[in-house]
């Protein structure tokens, strides 16, 4: 570690400690940051949008919700399998909507 933030394609990678609050920000047209979570640990997820309505859709799981600006959508999440998960915006949010993706990595503790 050289004190520099870990980046993946220019997007910061955040690994919150188990049991901590984990934040995901939707903005035209990315979901940030890349979250690195531990399998079996429970996190308090907070989803927010800073501009307009976005969709939070976690693939390949079937988890969908809409995230409107001005709100904090909180959910408790316990990953039970490792791997890379994609967040895909499934609510039209302007011309770059189809490029709006994000990533959640689940690793062994």
């Amino acid at each position, binding site marked *: 570690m050289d004190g520099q933030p870990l980046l993946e394609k220019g997007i910061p990678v955040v690994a919150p400690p188990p049991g901590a609050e984990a934040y995901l920000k939707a903005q035209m047209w990315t979901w940030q940051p890349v979250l690195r979570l531990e399998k079996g640990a429970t996190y308090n997820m907070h989803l927010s949008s800073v501009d*307009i*309505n976005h969709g939070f859709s976690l693939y390949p799981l079937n988890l969908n919700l*809409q995230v*409107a600006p*001005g709100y904090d959508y909180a959910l408790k999440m316990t990953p039970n399998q490792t791997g890379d998960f994609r967040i895909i915006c499934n609510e*039209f949010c*302007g*011309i770059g909507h189809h490029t709006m993706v994000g990533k959640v990595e689940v690793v062994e503790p």
Partner: protein
Amino acid sequence: MILRTCPVLGLKRARQRCHRHRLFPRRVIAALLVVLTRWQAVHLLSPVWYYRVLTAHGLMLIFILFFEMAVLYFAGPILLNCRLPAPKVGWAAYGLMLIGTLMVEYYVWTGKADVLFTSYVPLRADPGYYLGIILFAVGALAVTFLFLTTMVVAKRERTYEGSVPLVTFGALTAAVIAVIAVIALVHGAAIYIPTFLWSLNLMSLDAEVYRIVWWGLGHSSQQINVAAHVACWYLLAGLTVGGVVLNEKVSRTAYVLYVLMPAQSFQLNLLPYWQRTLWGSAFWPQPRRPCWRSASVARS
């Protein structure tokens, strides 16, 4: 008023031009373009035009109401053998709907409203787009009230006996849902008024409030279509193969439920489909009276 006898229905009706409302053929082309764009091997449109065409295509869900309004004119004055109480109001309403439609089309096709059918605030379109939808909704609402007035006039002038024909009853259902979709519980199209003001920076509007209220229109407006087209099924069954309804009370009860369910809880919009399937398929057609005629006409 000069009346003629309709060769198909055998009913007297005013000598006037038919109300012909048609969707623009370009909407069909628009739908085709959407398909060819999603198909990656062809990928016809750029993202900008894809969303633009998709917006125009989605708005068909509103502009299809031209047909429902035509059904109201048919199920009202024609099936009830009655005069249209205020033709000028009808033309004015039609004008409002037409102007509203043209405004919306203009702003969509010139790229000033790339917001899809849902137009979730705070995604912003030109104020003219929202105003167009408001004008259209006001026009549709006026036609609906004209239909309700026609029913009152027909009753008062005794142009029919017994209960209204089932098809008219079905159209009444569509009309009531239309009123609900636009104004009742301050939900539905009414949300476009604050949205219009918001687009002019005259007020603020919460994203979640918009979304919840808007869906009062999104779902209910489709119930108008479905109620009207079930009424048309009854009509066509009667006209084409002479089918009539075994138990009209059941059909009418289903229609009443159809109003109550979406009105009370539009989230439960699966329920009306369930009713429609169950009641609609099981109880017709059986020989009794044609569903497009009132009781007295059928007896004679």
